[in-house]
């Protein structure tokens, strides 16, 4: 693969990953958030595949396939199952409105570029130059976590955060050692399953998943 083609594909995929994150933040329907998350997962798998092709690494190709299965098939299926059982198709009035969210997204992306300067200067290459994208997605996921009120949108925010970290890991070091990768994927899957069960229990106990209902435990 020629370097120009590689760089173009790389930038395309990273741009797509960032765009998907921003769109997740923009949309209010939970179903379309899940679809966007699956799309982002596919782009992430594409990124891993691209790196595998460039480094001719069979191990990385396997990781790419694993990412594809986990993030495009398994996790969205789990989330959609949680969604079908609920009557809440839309995010309730978010704490921050869409315009402000978009503005914050822009600021957070700038912040990611500022913070990641030392990472890029350590090993300048087309791949590491895309690193800020990963950090930006992490920050966007974090932003989503603190500003949304539905249980499921928080799970989406957590997965966005996780995708951001995975992007960073692929761009920085072509992924972590295989045993760690396996541990991470398993943990994320289990955490999401746990959260799904909790969402269902919450619906029976509270009649909804608005997290503002969680205010029983306080000091005083």
């Amino acid at each position, binding site marked *: 693969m020629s370097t120009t083609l590689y760089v173009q594909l790389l930038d395309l995929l990273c741009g797509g990953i960032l765009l998907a994150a921003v769109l997740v933040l923009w949309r209010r329907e939970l179903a379309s958030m899940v679809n966007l998350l699956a799309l982002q997962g596919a782009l992430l798998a594409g990124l891993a595949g691209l790196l595998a092709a460039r480094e001719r690494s069979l191990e990385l190709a396997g990781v790419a396939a694993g990412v594809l299965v986990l993030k495009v098939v398994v996790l969205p299926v789990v989330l959609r199952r949680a969604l079908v059982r609920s009557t809440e198709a839309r995010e309730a009035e978010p704490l921050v409105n869409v315009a402000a969210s978009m503005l914050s997204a822009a600021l957070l992306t700038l912040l990611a570029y500022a913070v990641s300067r030392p990472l890029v200067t350590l090993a300048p290459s087309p791949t590491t130059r895309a690193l800020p994208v990963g950090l930006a997605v992490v920050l966007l996921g974090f932003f989503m976590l603190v500003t949304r009120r539905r249980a499921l949108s928080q799970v989406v925010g957590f997965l966005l955060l996780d995708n951001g970290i995975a992007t960073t890991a692929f761009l920085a070091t072509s992924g972590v*050692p295989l045993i760690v990768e396996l541990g991470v994927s398993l943990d994320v899957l*289990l*955490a999401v399953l746990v959260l799904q069960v*909790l969402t269902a229990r919450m619906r029976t106990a509270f009649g909804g998943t608005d997290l503002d209902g969680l205010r029983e435990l306080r000091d005083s």
Partner: protein
Amino acid sequence: MTAPDGGLVLLAPLAAPLLAAALAALLGWRPLVAWASVGAAAVILTSGIAASVATTGGPALTTAGGQLRADALSSVMLLVIGSVALIATWAGVSYVDDELTRGHTTAIGARRYAIMVPLFLATMVLAVLADSLGVLWAAVEATTVVTAFLVGHRRTRGALEATWKYVMICSVGIALAYLGTVLVYFAARNAGIDGAGTLDWTQLVTHADQLDPGVMRIAFALLVLGFGAKAGLVPLHSWLPDAHSQAPAPVSALMSGVLLSVAVYALLRYRIIAVASLDPSYVRGLLLTVALASLVLAASLLLAQRDYKRLLAYSSIEHMGLVALGAAAGTRLAIAALLLHVLGHGLGKAVLFCASGQILALEGSTRIDGVTGLLVRRPALAGTFALGLGALLGLPPFALFASTLGIARATSAAGLGWALAVAVVPLLVIFVAIVSRTAPMILGAPATTAPTVVRSPGASRALAPLVLGLVALAVIGVLGWPLQDLLRAAGDVVGSP
């Protein structure tokens, strides 16, 4: 020189809890299964003792091709896990029986408890024995997953709320720690450490001075934030009081006594790498900030605390803050003192949470003003609770007296006298707050409306593990035996000169 093979010593503490969990999955809750988890805890403790003997002054034990490794620091942590788990699982036997007879839980709930508790132990053992920092991370994250349903054991609204916060905050926190781990890996790869062992702690420590300071700066901040979440340190601490107050008592004991310190253990491992690779004053400043903030936060919330389980939870934040203060000092003496503190806090909290579980079963409320005159009505339980509180407050002869003094001495010797002076204020406030909040529970006249005590036959049996814990605390506190050499060796592993 090849390190001696630690085969059995390192594999047994992993295999025993896994076997106990498998047994529970097959048979459900029954006496054999309950005692199997106590046996697993005993195996962990025995391995901890064996590993301590081998690593005090000797080289580290390794097995499984170097994947599992125990140096003096890991040995101390094995001792902490084993001893706290022994108390908690032993107390858990009568706790779950009691829950079943009262109808607070079902056979399914009891089986889940019996599976998850040993699994929880296994993940913590893996965390302290893994040489790879990646595996350490995965094990710490796995503790969140296995304990999620233990926190939500009771299935009330409160328990559900606590579980949600716990899983969400800890998963996010630990995800940040993962990002930190990835950045360390990035720095290591660019420092020319290559191959499968790039994330191995032994490798990273040897080459720490070659890691890029700019990258390590971001990485260490993320690691402090992430593992700090799991350790109950500010700013991601808010899950802790909820989870500790809602979980079943033996699980609270394990979470407070061991889980928090396993996260601290991870920070200790990273600290020594960070100190060698970047400006030590940055590392110190970061740890000092979270330590002092945690102490102040705990003090402010303990002052008017009305719930005794939450009181114990905030006291955990306080003690972790103190441990972080020791880590900020970072000298060998400070590390030895803070490890003693971790052990003492673990044993003390195990005793107190298990005792508070029995008080809750007796009174049906976790409100402080709902409990009065305990000494008159249940002298043995009240005495255990009071002695446990004394241990927690750092009164002699218990171990926390020696360790608190040790941390204070080491901190001022490291030139952090001002930080110590700042820390003393919240510590005094906390001392007064805990004494004044809990004294009416133990002393005072019993309320006329208090439920009449039906002395259950198992009451003294349930107190046995707690008394054992108090005795251990006193012995360690008075004699320091047999730990001095081990703690000193552990201080050499991760302490700055």
